């Protein structure tokens, strides 16, 4: 009986795909990726899938856009937890419509926008992003020269932990984050080891403890982030970024550039997304805006939806401009 069912499905699928061979993007009956397809609830304008990358700033942006899509444009919104680079693949499989905050990734743009033509750029978010290595302020006060990478080896012993194998520890976040750490340590000949905390939260907790309890900590972090409003952190100077110095990931020996964060959407969404696509394209705000929402989400016990509503209520003029005409 099950075999007959399978055979039936086989025939069905063959027919659906027109027997011309199936591509990965071939939509199947129910998992229709386009808005207006399949599982959308009655009365809905369609379903939009915004990938959620694992840092709270991203979530803040995603929640604000999701709130508007739901309440102003009456779309269903899914927020699948998909990491940065996998989300790009989601454009191809139909699992993702929107990446709301993209940090560079020129290689992925080349592959998915130019070569595969399954993704489309949808403009800047207005946020300026920069990644760097940070220490708590008390360390900079106590060891003034520590903020230069050249003297990091001198202080490596301060940063030793049970996990760092006798070297200094450089605490890293989620494994999926944009990272040159290994190459930097190697190419700058630093006596350090990358220890993976596994999450943004482990970085935040580490940073807060380090400042409050005056414990040494060197860690990977980025701006925009609400933490800068709460805890005093100092960035360690790495060799200056110059255009193209990070072209070969193995040979990187320079700091991270300041990035213009942008949005990327699937080609399918750009073509058929209608008003939802318009809204995503128009969405733009400042680092302060994002930090406010992210702060509410992390420190004021609000859900993403609540924090988004609070910000939107207070900034009507801004979001009115995003709505499609």
């Amino acid at each position, binding site marked *: 009986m099950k075999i007959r069912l399978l055979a039936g499905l086989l025939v069905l*699928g063959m027919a659906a795909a027109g027997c011309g*061979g199936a591509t990965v993007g071939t939509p*199947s009956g129910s998992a229709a990726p386009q808005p207006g397809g399949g*599982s959308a609830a009655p009365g809905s304008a369609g379903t939009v899938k915004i990938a959620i990358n694992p840092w709270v700033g991203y979530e803040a942006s995603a929640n604000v856009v999701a709130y508007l899509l739901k309440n102003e444009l009456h779309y269903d919104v899914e927020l699948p937890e998909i990491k940065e*680079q*996998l989300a790009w*693949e989601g454009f191809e499989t139909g699992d993702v419509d929107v990446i709301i905050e993209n940090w560079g990734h020129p290689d992925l743009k080349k592959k998915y926008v130019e070569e595969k033509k399954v993704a489309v750029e949808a403009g800047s978010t207005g946020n300026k992003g920069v990644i760097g290595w940070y220490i708590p302020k008390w360390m900079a006060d106590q060891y003034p020269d520590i903020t230069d990478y050249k003297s990091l080896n001198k202080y490596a012993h301060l940063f030793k932990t*049970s*996990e760092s194998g006798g070297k200094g520890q450089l605490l890293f976040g989620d494994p999926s984050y944009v990272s040159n750490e290994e190459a930097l340590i190697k190419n700058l000949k630093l006596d350090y080891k990358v220890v993976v905390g596994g999450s943004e939260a*482990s970085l935040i907790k580490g940073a807060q403890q380090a400042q409050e309890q005056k414990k040494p900590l060197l860690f990977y972090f980025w701006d925009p982030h609400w933490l800068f409003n709460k805890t005093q952190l100092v960035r360690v100077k790495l060799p200056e970024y110059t255009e193209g110095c990070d072209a070969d990931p193995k040979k990187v020996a320079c700091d991270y550039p300041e990035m213009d964060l942008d949005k990327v959407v699937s080609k399918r969404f750009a073509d058929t997304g209608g008003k939802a696509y318009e809204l995503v394209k128009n969405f733009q705000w400042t680092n302060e805006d994002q930090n406010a929402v992210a702060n509410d989400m992390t420190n004021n016990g609000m859900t993403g939806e609540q924090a988004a509503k609070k910000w939107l209520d207070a900034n009507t003029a801004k979001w009115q401009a995003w709505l499609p005409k």
Partner: protein
Amino acid sequence: MTTQQRLPAPVEVTAAGTAEGAASRGGLPRWAWYAGAAALLAAAYAVFRGTGTLPHDKEAPQFLAVTELREWIDDQRDLNPVFLYFLNYVRLYVAEVHGLFQTVLNALGWPGLVGVMGGMAWLAGGWRVALLAVAGVGSFGVLGLWESSVETLALVGASVLLSLAIGVPLGVWAGLSRRVRGLVTPVLDVMQIMPTFAYLAPLVLFFHIGAPAGAIATMIYSIPPAIRITSLAIQEVSPAAVEASASLGATPAQTLFKVRLPLARPRIALAANQTVMMALSMVVIANLISAPGLGGDIIRGLSRAQVGLMLPAGVAIVVTAVVLDRMLSALARRGPRSRAGRLDLAAAGALAAAGLALTPVLPATWPQEWTVNLAAPVNEAVHWVESTWYGATTFVKDLTSHALLNPLEGLLTTAPWWLVALAVLALAWRVSGARPALTALGCLLAIALLGLWEHAMQTMTTVAVAVLVTLVLGLLLGVAAARSPRYSALQRPLLDAAQTMPAFVYLLPALALFGSTRFTAIFASVVYAVPPVARLVEDGIRAVPAPVVEAALSAGSTPGQLLWKVQLPMARRAILLAANQGIVMTLAMVVVGGLVGAGALGYDVVVGFSQRADFGMGFVAGVATVLLGVMLDRITQGADGRPSPRRRKLT
């Protein structure tokens, strides 16, 4: 991963097991040999330390080659006929099946799903199970996880359906044909010691990411018990019944459908149960390749380090496991002949109908006011624990790290590779015999060739420490249970429950207590592996024949003497089997611990999915994990009573 299907029948305690223990060779007492060997290895280490090490290189050509292959395949995905006409179709059909489940489950609406599950549970096991199912499915909504839970149900449903659709016929075939069995068994053996992570990367290669890939991964992971248990069930159908059927002129097909399958039905239900449990433990990990469902909530919690986010999702998965387990085991417990009574049919039908009738009436989504938000209180509780017990947990963690982990890791990573290989060979040879020892050696050398020596050594360190703790705890609990029936009665249900739980559930409390470090993985794997070990030990001690115990007591042994001189030695094989099981399970968990800071191989796999450039490393790390698993299994397999024939002649 659940492990019931792995547990073999109670070990028979034979006199041979103990007779061997006392033997010595060549005049010297046995310990002298061991001491000599250890001294030799130590001396070699002292001399060669730091030479012949194989440090980890993220850019190893092996990794880059696989990464390139992946890029190439990605470009071919919509061009190459293998993909166009085969793999993509497979993906498409799995997507269809998954979509079908999704559509049906969503179309039922929440009242409908509650009713239908309740009805099915009633049919399977009467009103108690029905009540459990209704409460269980309802709890998805109460936890505020209705959508994710339904997604998970759809994924589990689709993969289990496919697993059974393929696994049961294959199992039947294997049950009927010795030749097929000979082909299938070794494959299943390896699949069973493969950690969950190892399945993902190859699937990404062929089936891309997303729900279908997740369903295929889950299906492949959960198929071994379907095949194995079905095959056993078919083989163990009373030969008298089969012969009687044949003697009356039944065709093989008639005998299969009228005799073998009906008689094997309860055990096939058991196979289905195991399959479901395996699938449930995979759905979380499948989220690493973007499969939807509760796994997403767990991973979300992990990446926010918020136990409050994870706990409800963990609870929902456990609830799913318990509900499905009770339903299917009720089905399995029922004799081969029983049928649902008319009353049960009516009640089940009424329940389902009531649910369906309510669907259009009640709100389409689970009402907000019926949910309990656990996140905040749980986060607070965890925070409290963290800050209150900070001293104690940090002490335990640091002590273990500095006293056990770091020295051992240092030893393994600074020793020349050939010395480690030699030690492994010697150990495996002694414990399991020549052939397993050579296999173990082969695996170790392959790991070296794959470029993952250092990380494999680190993972092995973590596994070793975890196994040590597991064995000590398991022995204590097992002995305690064997000696006190009252304590055993208390402990059994706990162990039973622990064994139906998906593996990663143990990560949660560990993470709450110890943050993301290697110790978290150790803690989780200990919690995960202790139940079966304790149970095997208890069973082993209990299996010591009563006359022997009586004889020892009548000779005036104290309870302590009885334990040390009679029960433990006679339960030796059971205990060694427990060690073997413990090691394999611990490895699986330590690798999953890569998600929470265990580093090494598990982390390589995680990175492989997170960073495109590291896909190759992740893939190869998956392979290395399997090799490590086979190696550890072979080193200890002599323990579980299946020595190779050659071993018997050699020792």
